[in-house]
């Protein structure tokens, strides 16, 4: 009898996981820590579509994964950065966006639309924009002593720094420190940046793009690079953690929602994008995770405290010398070569 019961139970276990074939699904592939759970839950409640959520910590990892998956198996929505949107657009990986299906599209700030990386936004819908700057734990490092990228090279920071695990951002910093543009395509300049960054390596304790705020909060690193949203969340838990806009210029980026050509639930994808474009949802996202919303209607309804928070919405002064990340075309392979060498030269 007991053996029959156990086998029945086992069968139920098997069946239980197979039942999900009937559900309405949306496969969303996003940066980690980039979407409040609340938003997904609310979406599911309203539409009955369950979001299957996977995360990545770099554009490169996202791109490699997408290349591995074929038509029957891919994601429906992905959130690449600007330069990967251009890359993927050139390679024919993106489905055209039918704006007539997005009634909330008009909410977006016109200043962020129709950019060179995607003229007329035929393939992408801006999701969040933000900056990568310097984080300083003022409990461990005197406030005001770190105001430039260059300050991180100080030998006093040996084994105390965090860098984001992002090739373009780390090299952007290396290039700026030498006075070049962060979007430089000259291989000689990129190599020079590599040599400069190599000198920084002894100071680097860890690379982290999963949740860069964690090593600061855990006391493992005292200063280094961080994304503004992460800094915003970190300050919430530990007020000693400051976000600094470096003098050489902060790094600006924009991440957009795209639908791969291999997407299976395109309908659900459009519903989700439209949902995100609602002012109250855009505001919620910005308030929860601290990145700037490209949604003008959302920004208008924001909590005062967040709207005036310099970490989330920088002033013009903060943005002096800043540069938006743009596509570097073929030069990306030069970057990749030196990034690989930089990370291996860790010892």
């Amino acid at each position, binding site marked *: 009898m007991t053996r029959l019961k156990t086998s029945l139970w086992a069968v139920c*276990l*098997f069946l239980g*996981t197979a039942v999900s074939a009937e559900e309405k699904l949306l*496969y969303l592939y996003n940066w980690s*820590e980039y979407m409040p759970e609340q938003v997904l839950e609310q979406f599911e409640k309203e539409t009955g579509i369950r979001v*299957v*959520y996977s995360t990545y910590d770099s554009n490169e990892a996202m791109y490699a994964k997408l290349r*591995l998956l074929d038509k*029957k198996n891919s994601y429906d929505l992905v959130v690449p950065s600007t330069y990967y949107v251009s890359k993927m657009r050139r390679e024919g990986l993106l489905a055209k966006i039918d704006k007539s299906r997005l009634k909330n599209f008009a909410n977006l700030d016109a200043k962020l639309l129709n950019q060179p990386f995607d003229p007329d936004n035929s393939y992408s819908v801006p999701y969040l924009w933000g900056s990568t700057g310097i984080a300083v734990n003022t409990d461990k490092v005197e406030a005001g002593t770190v105001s430039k990228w260059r300050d991180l090279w100080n030998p006093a920071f040996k084994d105390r720094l965090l860098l984001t695990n992002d090739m373009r951002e780390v090299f952007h910093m290396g290039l700026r420190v030498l006075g070049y543009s962060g979007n430089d395509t000259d291989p000689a300049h990129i190599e020079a940046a590599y040599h400069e960054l190599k000198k920084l390596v002894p100071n680097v304790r860890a690379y982290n793009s999963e*949740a860069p705020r964690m090593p600061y909060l855990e006391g493992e690193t005292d200063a280094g690079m961080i994304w503004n949203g992460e800094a915003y969340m970190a300050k919430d838990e530990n007020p000693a953690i400051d976000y600094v806009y470096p003098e050489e210029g902060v790094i600006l980026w924009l991440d957009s929602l795209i639908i791969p050509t291999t997407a299976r639930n395109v309908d659900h994808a459009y519903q989700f994008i439209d949902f995100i474009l609602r002012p109250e949802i855009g505001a919620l996202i910005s308030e929860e995770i601290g990145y700037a919303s490209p949604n003008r209607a959302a920004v208008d309804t924001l909590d005062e405290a967040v709207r005036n928070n310099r970490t989330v919405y920088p002033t013009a002064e903060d943005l002096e010398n800043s540069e938006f990340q743009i596509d570097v075309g073929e030069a990306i392979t030069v970057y990749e070569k030196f990034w690989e060498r930089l990370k291996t030269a860790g010892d």
Partner: protein
Amino acid sequence: MPMLNWLKHAYLWFVYLLLYLPIGVLVFYSFNASKNPYRWGGFSWHWYERLWQNSSLLEAAMNSLLLAVSAATLSTLIGPLTAVALHRYRFRGKRFLNSMLFVVMMSPDIVLAISLLALFILIGVQLGYVSLLLAHVTFCLPFVVVTVYARLSGFNPQILEAARDLGAGDLRALVTVVLPIIFPAVLAGWLLGFTLSLDDVVVSMFVTGPTFEILPLRIYSMVRLGIKPEVNALATVLLLLSLATLIGSQFILTRKGERKT
């Protein structure tokens, strides 16, 4: 000499402590009411509630269990057959087969992972449950074969001859005579396969796809993120489950033994 005895026991305890301390810490903190795990905030079931509500984490855990069960079962279908064939039959390339099994057993996970990924991409196998199952069976198989083969080696072939003399065909002889004798080894092989599959991180991370989320992948970003108390709760649950299964299987084995006598 009692001093030496005490030392021996102390050493055993010491090593067990080493093995279980980190897990013990996990279990301990799974009941911690405070979110900051380094500060004890009182006893609480809170994280277990959160775990129960975290459907994606639970689903990943269920998927891993499902995968482990199917991989172990499939290996124990093919494995004993392989062991019997290696033991009973003479055929060309036997040594080659042996060495192939050995290669799989000794290959570092990562080599296995990339080679299988390359294969799946080439022949167009969808990355998901199927690719994972094939990969897991591949690395469980040699261990099952070795376990069953060892048991077969100590087994008197004359019993099989006797069965054959009495008119049983190959299949019948296998099922009624060989199987009961090798059953403990088969069960051990199943448990071994189950263990290896559940424990695997490397192979799983390479050959999986978005439709079949398994535990290592789901918690990979979580554990790098920092402390996620739901993971502590999940680990505790898995631990209890495994203890229960092991006790259960031991129970089955002793019952079978008793029935024989």
